[in-house]
C-alpha cells in the first residue's frame, strides 16, 4: 500500500558516468607473465651470434619487458588505490606490504634480466589476485 502509492515514477542519477567497480587483477597477471616470458627469451638468445637481426630482437625483448613491467605497476597501483578499501585492510593486514613488494619487484625486473626476480613478481601478483578474488566472494 505504502509502496504503491508513494513509489517514485522516475529515477534520478547521483553518480558518475564511468562505470565504477570494474576491477580485475588479470591485466597485472598478464603483464607479469609477459615480463617472465621476455626474460626467458632474452636468456635463450645465442650470445655468440649477435648479428644485427639478433640485436634487433634483443632490443625488442628488453623494450617489451620494460613496458610490461610498467603496465604491471600501473595495474597494481589502480587496484591498490581504487579497489581495495579500509575494510579489506582490516581483513588483510599485509595488503600494503604485498603491494609495496610487488611494485618493487616490477621495478627490479626493469633493472635486471633475472628469471628468479620474474618468478617472484609472478608469485606476488598471484597473491594479490588471490586476495582480490577472495574479497569478491
Amino acid at each position, binding site marked *: 500500500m505504502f509502496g504503491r502509492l*508513494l513509489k*517514485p515514477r*522516475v529515477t534520478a*542519477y*547521483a*553518480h*558518475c558516468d564511468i562505470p565504477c567497480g570494474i576491477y580485475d587483477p588479470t591485466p597485472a597477471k598478464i603483464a607479469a607473465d609477459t615480463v617472465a616470458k621476455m626474460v626467458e627469451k632474452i636468456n635463450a638468445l645465442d650470445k655468440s651470434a649477435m648479428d644485427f637481426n639478433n640485436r634487433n630482437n634483443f632490443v625488442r625483448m628488453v623494450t617489451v619487458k620494460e613496458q610490461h613491467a610498467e603496465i604491471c605497476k600501473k595495474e597494481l597501483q589502480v587496484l591498490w588505490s581504487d579497489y581495495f578499501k579500509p575494510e579489506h585492510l582490516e581483513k588483510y593486514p599485509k595488503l600494503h606490504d604485498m603491494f609495496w613488494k610487488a611494485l618493487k619487484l616490477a621495478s627490479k625486473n626493469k633493472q635486471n634480466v633475472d628469471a628468479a626476480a620474474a618468478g617472484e613478481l609472478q608469485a606476488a601478483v598471484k597473491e594479490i589476485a588471490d586476495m582480490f578474488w577472495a574479497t569478491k566472494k
Partner: protein
Amino acid sequence: MRPWRVAVSGQSMEPALREGDWVLVLPPRRTPRAGDVVLVRDPRERSRLLLKRVAEVKDHGVVVAGDRSDHSTDSRHFGVVPLSLVLGRAALRYAPFRRFGLIPDA
C-alpha cells in the same frame, strides 16, 4: 507544478542521498541557492534526471557538484546547468523509513 517523487541511483551524493532513497522534490519557488540539492535535467541528454548540489549560482544557471567528487559527473564535465533545466529542490527523504528526514542544505 506538482512535487516529484524520485528514486536515487548512484553514490555521488552520499551520505545525504543514498542509492535506493526515495526523495520528494519540490518545484522551485525561488532561485536555487548554493547548498541546495536540486533535481536537474542532464544538459547533455535531457531525458536523464540528475540529483546534485548547487555549488554556485550564476546569472543564467547553476554550477552543480556531487558531494563525493570522486564518484560524480557534474558541472566539471557538462558546465553550467541553465535555470530552465532545474526542476526542483530535493527537500525530503521519505523512504526507507529509517532514512526519513529533511535533506540538509549543507
